[in-house]
């Protein structure tokens, strides 16, 4: 089956499940579909760096958490009518989603630029370790930041607003997240097919050959990392809005690991691999989680099977076409 039809089927399936659940009066299922869309968005960000760029980042929770805290800080100040700072000018918080998203994208991109400039001096296992170290630094920073809840995190009592929509209605909030996911996936498809994406893919395979074509692979990787961090930051802001809660666990290395697991399950470097991976992850979490609290053992076995039997993940298995990775 052509991969584009699998992608269309996955996205249509996600949308239809949410609509069916809404029509059937099952708001919890709509919320689960929203979680799938948000996790897929976060993993889509990582997929650019990992799948196309070959950058195994074990610190992408930094951007997820930073996006979450961007939302938490802005919204908590807005709900308390307390400016974030007053000098040299007054900077108020906001409960407006579009502004929060812009802030999450900006801080995610900025953090990725700083971390990328340092981490991309290394490669292989050292890159994994340095990104993990950044993740842990942010995790402990969030724990020791009492102004924003410290270890207990930060609750936002009312979900942030979007002009013309009732974001407290699960199906409308799903619609927002789903629309963002579609836009980001469209952008990712364009990036992958652009000279930038092709050169990034080529740089993963043979950096010296790319250099012989006049392209600096480090520069490509840094930009890929920045875009990746921005998208994962946006997903973090949406995830915090979904739960109306942000806590240091968003920065934890387990979150970084889960994002990688989603991509491997769905298909590394596949456009809709993150969607398939996130859907499977959430379904297993709900289904197996109801059977046993040790459900992640079964997830581990599944991951083992995917890695050993079909590296293309779910999408690769359905498409029966070798990965471009």
């Amino acid at each position, binding site marked *: 089956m052509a991969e584009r039809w699998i992608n269309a089927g996955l996205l249509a399936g996600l949308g239809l499940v949410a609509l069916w659940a809404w029509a059937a009066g099952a708001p919890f299922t709509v919320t689960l579909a929203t979680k799938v869309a948000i996790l897929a968005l976060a993993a889509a960000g990582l997929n650019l760096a990992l799948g196309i760029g070959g950058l195994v980042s074990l610190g992408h929770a930094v951007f997820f958490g930073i996006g979450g805290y961007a939302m938490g800080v802005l919204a908590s100040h807005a709900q308390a009518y307390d400016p974030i700072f007053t000098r040299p000018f007054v900077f108020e918080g906001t409960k407006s989603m579009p502004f929060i998203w812009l802030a999450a994208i900006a801080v995610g991109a900025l953090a990725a630029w700083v971390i990328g400039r340092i981490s991309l001096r290394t490669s292989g296992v050292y890159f994994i370790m340095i990104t993990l170290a950044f993740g842990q630094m942010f995790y402990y920073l969030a724990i020791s930041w009492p102004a924003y809840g410290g270890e207990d995190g930060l609750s936002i009592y009312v979900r942030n607003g979007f002009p013309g929509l009732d974001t407290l209605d699960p199906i409308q909030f799903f619609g927002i997240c789903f629309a963002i996911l579609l836009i980001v996936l469209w952008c990712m498809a364009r990036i992958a*097919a652009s*000279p930038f994406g*092709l*050169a990034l*893919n*080529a740089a993963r*395979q*043979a950096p*010296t*050959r*790319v*250099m*012989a*074509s*006049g*392209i*600096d*692979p480090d520069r490509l990787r840094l930009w890929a990392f920045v875009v990746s961090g921005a998208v994962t930051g946006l997903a973090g802001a949406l995830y915090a809005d979904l739960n109306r809660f942000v806590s240091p666990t968003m920065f934890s290395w387990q979150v970084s690991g889960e994002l990688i697991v989603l991509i491997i399950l769905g298909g590394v470097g596949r456009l809709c691999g993150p969607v398939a991976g996130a859907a499977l992850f959430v379904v297993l979490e709900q289904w197996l989680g109801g059977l046993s609290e040790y459900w992640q053992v079964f997830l581990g076995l599944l991951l083992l099977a995917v890695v050993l039997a079909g590296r293309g993940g779910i999408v690769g298995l359905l498409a029966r076409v*070798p*990965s*471009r*990775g």
Partner: protein
Amino acid sequence: MSLLRVSDLRASYGPAQVLHGASLAVAEGEVVALLGRNGMGKTTSIRAICRMMPSHGALTFDGHDLHRLPSHRAARLGLGLVPEGRRCFAPLTVAENLRAAARRGAWDLARVERLFPRLAERREQRAGTLSGGEQQMLAIGRALMTNPRLLILDEATEGLAPLVRAEIWAAIEALRVETGMAILIVDKSLAELRRIADRAVILSRGRDVWQGPIAGLDDTLAGRYLGV
């Protein structure tokens, strides 16, 4: 004035010194053959010129000191390398391989496909599934997509069937005649080189031992330094 000027080039792989002071020059529009037996330093010279390995000596391209530049900046000056062994990006399609390397200039996808019509037929095929000859055409096309001022071909016809070799040589000749592009070429096909090249440089034990118009490369020299 020379486009590429290499003087007293020295390079080593660890403790093993391969180049002991090689010199050569390529002028605008000139085709220079770099000759020598196996292991005499031809590919090492090319790797050093393209800044893919450290070296010493004088190395200038269009007046720029290449030793001050990383390899991607050297390539941006106009050094287009077709490496030994083709080395295409196997998972990418033909068109993607070409677009990944594209830089603004006279050479674009359509022009490369006119030079190598086979690539147009295989546009959406993955490079890893092409025949050896097609991969070589793709490697040359990829170098042309960078719009080089000097095309460097390292063993471009090695291991190919005679008909395919003829196609590659025809394309190189077309480049020379139609574009006047400067070309530095390493190959063992002396008969073809005599037809296409203006000058030759012979390397032996990491040094240039003879340079001159290729017409002056007589059988005695060929026998002594090239073993033919």
